[in-house]
C-alpha cells in the first residue's frame, strides 16, 4: 500500500490552521484529516531551481510539516526567467539560502531545513533520514538515478519531474509497486546542455508534482503510479503512457511490495 502520511491523531490543528487552510480543508476527500497528514509530513526537495521553486512554494503554502531543500548551486542571472524563489538581489547567494528566506516568510509554521550540498550516492541515504517523500526537481539525469536508487532502497516514494523546452514529464515512483526510474530510462541517456526552457514549463510540471504529493501524503485520489504523464506544450497535449517494470532491473528487480 502507498504510505499515506503518518499517524496524525496526535497532531491537532490549531485555530489558525483551520482558517489558514480552510479552502483546501473544504475539499471533501482531504478535510482536516488530510491537513493533519500534511502537517506530519517531511518532504525532501532535490533541487531548488525551475521545478523546485514552485514545488517548495506550493508545499509550504499547503502547510507541509517539514521541508528539506537540497541544492549546492548559487543563484545566477540566467536562472531568473523560471526559478521564481530567486530574485535579482539573490544573485551569488546559495539557492537553498535564498529559498529558505522566502519560504520562512511565506509560511513560518513550516520547519525549514536548507542543505547546500551536492547530492551523491554516498550522502543521499543520510539526507533521507526521517523523510516521507522525495520530490525530484533535479536538472540532470545522473543525480536522478541516485535519487531513485536511494529511494527504492529506503522504501520512500519519489515524484519525478523533468522538463525540456515546452515538454515536461511526471511520474510517481512507489518502491515495490511501480517501475522505478531505472526501469524507465537507460542509465547513459544524454542530451545537450544548457537546455532551453520557459518559466511556464517547470511551473506546470511542478504544480502536477505537488498535486501528486498532496494525494499521496493525504491518501486519496489516484496517483500517476506506473504511468508517465507527458505535457507537449507546443501542441497543448497531455498524454499518459503506461510504464513497464523491468523484472531484471538492477535497482528494483528484487524489491518486493
Amino acid at each position, binding site marked *: 500500500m502507498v504510505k499515506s502520511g503518518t499517524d496524525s491523531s496526535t497532531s491537532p490543528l490549531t485555530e489558525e490552521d483551520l482558517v489558514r487552510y480552510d479552502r483546501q480543508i473544504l475539499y471533501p476527500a482531504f478535510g482536516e484529516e488530510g491537513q493533519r497528514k500534511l502537517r506530519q509530513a517531511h518532504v525532501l526537495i532535490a533541487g531548488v531551481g525551475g*521545478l523546485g521553486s514552485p514545488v517548495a512554494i506550493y508545499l509550504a503554502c499547503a502547510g507541509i510539516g517539514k521541508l528539506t531543500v537540497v541544492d549546492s548551486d548559487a543563484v545566477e542571472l540566467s536562472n531568473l526567467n523560471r526559478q521564481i524563489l530567486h530574485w535579482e538581489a539573490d544573485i551569488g547567494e546559495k539557492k537553498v539560502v535564498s529559498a529558505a528566506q522566502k519560504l520562512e516568510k511565506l509560511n513560518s509554521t513550516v520547519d525549514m531545513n536548507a542543505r547546500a550540498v551536492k547530492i551523491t550516492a554516498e550522502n543521499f541515504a543520510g539526507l533521507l533520514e526521517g523523510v516521507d517523500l522525495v520530490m525530484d526537481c533535479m*536538472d540532470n*539525469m545522473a543525480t536522478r538515478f541516485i535519487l531513485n536508487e536511494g529511494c527504492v532502497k529506503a522504501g520512500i516514494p519519489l515524484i519525478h*519531474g*523533468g*522538463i525540456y*523546452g515546452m515538454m515536461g514529464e511526471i511520474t510517481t515512483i512507489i518502491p515495490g509497486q511501480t517501475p522505478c526510474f531505472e526501469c524507465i530510462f537507460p542509465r547513459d541517456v544524454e542530451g545537450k546542455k544548457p537546455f532551453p*526552457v520557459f518559466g511556464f514549463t*517547470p511551473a506546470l510540471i511542478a504544480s502536477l508534482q505537488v498535486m501528486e504529493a498532496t494525494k499521496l501524503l493525504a491518501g486519496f485520489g489516484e496517483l500517476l503510479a506506473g504511468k508517465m504523464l507527458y505535457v507537449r506544450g507546443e501542441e497543448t497535449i497531455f*498524454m499518459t503512457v503506461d510504464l513497464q517494470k523491468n523484472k531484471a532491473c538492477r535497482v528494483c528487480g528484487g524489491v518486493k511490495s
Partner: protein
Amino acid sequence: MQGLRGGEIMSTRIAMHPFFAEHVRGKEAIEVEGKDVGECLAALIKQYPPIEKKLFEKKGQLRGYLDIFVNGKSTFPDALTHPIIDGDEIRIIVFGAGG
C-alpha cells in the same frame, strides 16, 4: 536484392516510444533501411511524414528531449551520423533532463 553496402538489404527496426504513437498509427516498431541513424530516421519520415516535426527542430537538429539508442547504447552527441549495420536496433528515448 543488393543493399546499400553491396550486401543483402536487411531492414533495421526502430522501436517507437509511445510519445509518437499517434504519428505512426500506434505501431510499436517500424522497419526501415539506412546506413546510419540519419538515413533510418529519414526512411521513417518517408513512411510517416507528420513525425518529422516531432523528431526535429526547425534547423534539422534532433529535438533536445530525444536520445537515439542503438543496441542499447546512447549515440549522443552524433546520433544522425552513427553507423547502422544489419541487425541493429534503434530505440528512441524521450526524456526531460532539465529541472
